[in-house]
């Protein structure tokens, strides 16, 4: 077979080249991933923290949340957000599918992040909580000033791989017609029949995105490292 990279300069019929379309699709992938990551980090941290509190209702809420969002496939959750929820809550009927995808991916990932945050908090010696409380800090203050600053730095490596997963998982958005990279790959392949070139380019963009997240996370990790801990001590 022969290569035909000029396919990217062909017109899509909509007044732009396939290259332009691919770059805008990359933009959609990154926007979905970044917005979902913001949702996942905030909700996931909250649920992870709730699961370590002494209040059994909070713990139960956090546990239910994690089990619910962890045991349903992402694609099925996406369909629930897209088909089921708007038909039950009519207010949500006009919400753009971008928002629904972000919520679906964000909540799905939040269950995983909750698990990591919980594990991170539990690796800290219990004595730190007791010390905080003995000093007269309230429980929220203990979390804010004693536990979380340590716990978040401990969980950066697992959170990095979750952030890379979220870029990979954003590919399911094709199922609800968001023109992100996977959707672009499927459609452009069909229109041009130059599947290999298109798929190679799209795969390369996924690589670049995940790799950049990895480097960025490494940079953050080095900056916030706790001196004296494994890998730290500068």
């Amino acid at each position, binding site marked *: *077979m022969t290569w035909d990279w000029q396919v990217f300069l062909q017109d899509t019929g909509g007044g732009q080249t396939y290259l332009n379309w691919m770059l805008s699709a990359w933009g959609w992938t990154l926007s979905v991933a970044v917005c979902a990551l913001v949702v996942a980090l905030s909700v996931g941290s909250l649920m992870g923290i709730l699961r370590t509190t002494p209040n059994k209702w909070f713990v139960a809420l956090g546990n239910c949340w994690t*089990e*619910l969002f*962890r*045991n*349903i*496939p*992402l*694609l*099925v*959750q996406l*369909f*629930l957000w897209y*088909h*089921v929820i708007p*038909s*039950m*809550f*009519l207010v949500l009927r006009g919400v753009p599918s971008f928002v629904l995808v972000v919520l679906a991916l964000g909540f799905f990932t939040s269950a995983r992040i909750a698990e990591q945050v919980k594990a991170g908090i539990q690796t800290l010696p219990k004595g730190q909580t007791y010390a905080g409380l003995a000093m007269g800090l309230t429980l929220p203050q203990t979390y804010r000033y004693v536990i979380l600053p340590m716990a978040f730095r401990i969980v950066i490596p697992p959170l990095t791989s979750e952030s*890379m997963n979220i*870029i*990979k*998982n*954003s*590919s*399911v958005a*094709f*199922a609800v017609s968001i023109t992100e990279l*996977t959707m672009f*790959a*499927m459609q452009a*392949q069909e229109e041009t029949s130059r*599947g*290999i070139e298109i*798929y190679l380019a*799209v*795969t390369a963009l*996924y*690589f670049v995105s*995940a*790799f950049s997240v990895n480097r960025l996370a490494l940079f953050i990790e080095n900056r916030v490292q706790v001196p004296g801990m494994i890998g730290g001590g500068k």
Partner: protein
Amino acid sequence: MNLNLDFSFLNWGVVSSFVAKGLIFSVQLTVIAMIGGIALGTVLALMRLSGKKWLVAPAAFYVNTLRSIPLVMVILWFFLLIPLLIGRPMGAELSAIITFTVFEAAYYSEIMRAGIQSVPKGQVYAGYAVGMTYPQCMQLVVLPQAFRNMLPVLLTQTIILFQDTSLVYAIGAYDLLKGFEVAGKNFNRPVETYLVAAVVYFVICFSLSMLVRRLQKKIAIIR
């Protein structure tokens, strides 16, 4: 809130004619990809731990590449490439089975690598000292313990694999989710069928993960 749900169309006939076929395929895909993936993954893990550069490099390349591409893209790649390589079209179902085996091998191999490394090195030396060859030592001493140590993690990965089988949606293979979707379209009740699909997936995955948790307590080796 508008709760106008009607599940009455979901009788046994509908389930057995639309959903059962999909469920059988999803389970089939999971089991084949698990067995094939663990076998291939173990070979990859042994290659990466062999210390020989010409074995380590290709195995590391295989694992790292597949782990950084979205599964949906891998499914699309195989669906495009296999017919080009063998010269004739291949059904979505068979293509999915090959894809998942190859893809999951990369994830299982990382688990097996950790499992093999969890066996103390002294045991390998002990194996050699009593005159075992490398294959004997791996087969009789290291791998049985590696499997045992990693069984919960391997099974957890299998639950994730079962969830991921829903992504064959991208190439139109007929799996559990597709079964529900077709039923929903036929009776014009998509909302109800998606809900039931979610409940079915949840029940299967949740009960499996409970089982794994119980197993984990039972088989942990106390050192």
